[in-house]
């Protein structure tokens, strides 16, 4: 048995390497890509009610591409993304709806987050985790790019960079 020790070490190593190669749920393509985005309507956060009304969401007659960003005030990558999303909202706000969905959070913390980054793109509260069920997101942040016809083009899990967002927006505006 001992004479074959390199074989045992190789077998163990192979098994563990294989174990680590198994797909991370974060990196799996969403089954929703290429399909119609689930529609929803959720209460708008207080600072945006005057401009966007009491409820907002994804629905058939929106006639605008949507960047759906799922965030929480306690998530560090969300803090990196917030200024980027805000910048794109100021640039493309008239042609693309950038919509934040606040999940797993308290209203007070979420409002403080909006104030801290002086966000002007609208966000909605998802207290009951509806988005989680319908869009099947794995963690925060996560971003869905939905084209003018309501089809999901991309699911981006994790932090999004300015270059990536630029690329996605260019695609939906073509």
């Amino acid at each position, binding site marked *: 048995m001992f004479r074959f020790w390199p074989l045992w*070490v190789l077998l163990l190593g192979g*098994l563990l390497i294989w*174990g*680590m190669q198994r797909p*991370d749920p974060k990196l799996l393509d969403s089954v929703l890509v290429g399909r119609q985005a689930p529609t929803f309507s959720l209460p708008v956060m207080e600072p945006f009610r005057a401009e966007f009304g009491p409820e907002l969401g994804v629905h058939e007659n929106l006639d605008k591409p949507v960047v759906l960003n799922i965030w929480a005030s*306690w998530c560090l990558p969300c803090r*990196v993304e917030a200024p980027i999303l805000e910048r794109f909202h100021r640039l493309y706000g008239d042609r693309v709806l950038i919509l934040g969905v606040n999940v797993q959070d*308290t209203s007070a913390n979420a409002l403080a987050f909006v104030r801290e980054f002086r966000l002007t793109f609208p966000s909605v509260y998802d207290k009951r985790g509806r988005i989680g069920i319908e869009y099947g997101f794995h963690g925060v942040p996560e971003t869905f790019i939905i084209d003018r016809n309501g089809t999901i083009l991309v699911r981006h899990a994790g932090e999004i960079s300015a270059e990536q967002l630029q690329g996605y927006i260019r695609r939906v505006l073509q």
Partner: protein
Amino acid sequence: MTPGMLGGVTIVAALIFSLLGLALAVLAHVLRDARYLEAAKRLSGLALLSALVSYGALQWAILINDFSVSFVAQSSSADNPLWVKLVTPWSALEGSILLWASIQAFYGWLVTLRVGKSLDIWRAPAVLGTLFAVQVFFFAVILFVSNPFEVVLSPPLDGQGTNPLLQNHWMMAVHPVLMYLGFVGLSVPFAYAVSAMINKRYQSWIHETRWWTLVTWGFLTAGIWTGKWWSYEILGWGGYWAWDPVENASLIPWLFATAFLHTAQVQERKGLFKTWNFALITLAFAGTVFGTFLTRSGVIMSVHAFASGPVGAWFLIFLLSVLVLGLGLLARVSSEIREAGEVQWKSREGVLLGGALLFTTFSFVVVIGTLWPLVVEAISGAEVSIGAPFFDQISMPFAITMLLLMGIGPLLPWRNSGPQIVRNLVIMLVALVSATVLGLLAGLTLGVSFTVGLFAYNVTAIWLMISQGVRERSRSLGISAGQAFAQLFATNRRRFGSHIVHFGIALAALSIAFSMTYRVVEQRTLNVGDTWNVHGMEIRLLSIGGRQEPNRFVALAPIEVRSTSRDGWGSDGHFQTRLNFYPQMDTPLATPVVRYSLYNDYYFVLMQFDTENRQWATLKIIVTPLVLWLWVAGFIVALGTLYILWPVGSRVSRREATPVAGD
């Protein structure tokens, strides 16, 4: 200078000092020049100093709520009480590896103090080199993949908070540190073994290595035991061992180290089992890396898993390197190693070898059981889980054989057994059988009765050994039995210490058998003011209330308990059952109230309550007999280990050096 900068700079310094130390140790080994060895010793001190400063910087950042440091932003909160802030470094991945590396540097430095004394200058370079290499690995992991001191460009006003499960109990301050002291400590015996194989000195390493292994074994045992206690106190299911992959991972190095502690004695006295000892120490250290890999790679799901990341691949490379180095060296030298004789089964070394085989087999069973779901998935794609039933069943015969060997082993003389041993064995078997029969007559199950029998058998064995030693000594020196006992106890630390440890293990087995067989779980929803008669207790729900604490909201449901029959003995009192709500967590954490008693433990958990009108609450009670004795047993094992290790004065040690009757 900010804490983040200080921490970052000192991590780089620690890595550089460790790399230089490694280079110098290699030079000292190749050139056989003691000046390089001296320099390597100094670098070990500098690396330790840098690691401590870096650790201090992390602690400092946590204390002053510096959320520009990534670790603090991710794993701490301004509202945390002081004690939580003090234990926060090891509540998440990056900080835990920094603590690990600091302890590694500390052990490395301790070993340098032995150079020129018990560690001769021929073996020292390879020992220090191995330890420096391990240290380089940890500091490199911190610097390149898991740095707690990353800069957060727009720092949040408050951090994400500490994992609620870990701030729910003070045991968080104890269990992980003991585990790390045990895990990291096994690198020292490994380094001694590597050096012995490189320098082809197969005998001189064993004495000091046994000492180091016993120290880390003590920490590991204490770590495993406090882990059991923690899970018992906090997880709300009333159990203490779930065969979770990470619990298994802590058991694997423990089993190998236990086997080594026994076979090392045989090598010390008889020069046998040299190959075994090299293999066991390599596997014990590889076991610690394997456990660390499992918790940090995301390969296997577990309650202990840290967030996974690229660290896993690094630990896998490290694990394979340890196995290749240890087993490769052993394969190279195994043909040269000459055993000093044959093993006879009816002798102490025979039983010790049997014990080592048993521990090794069981460790491999645990390894295979832990990895089996992965193997099945690799071959067939099916997802299976192997849980407690499999391990409970497989560990039973192992435990019984171990308890049987534990009784006989120390009683047998070295080499071959004589006729007096037969008499002792008969007495022990009589104890085994009569205690088992008494248990059955008292209405206990067969398994529990047999465990009672095994306990009696082991206690009889210890009593026989002590009484025979005392009788011989008092007769030969003409002193009273009391004096003889006191002298033997003071001079024969190894032997008496091992008696104490073995007694602790037998007591633990007894407690496990009772607590697993006769556990009672009941649940009931009560209105405020209602009483519930259950298992010899009358439980009254007094009220439902709540209070805000800095880091959590606490819902309280005080109850009054009165015992009404023998089943409920010792349960009387007022208890505050509670649920803790942490802002980071959707579901509340139950904090059980445990009423300890020498007979039953009573465990009260608030499961649910009426949040609107505060009219009702759902309570769970768990009654577990004799489980308190498991913690007592752990304490006894720790005491026995300490007794063996306690530094002896020169007067006593000289006496210890002369062989004593019965040893």
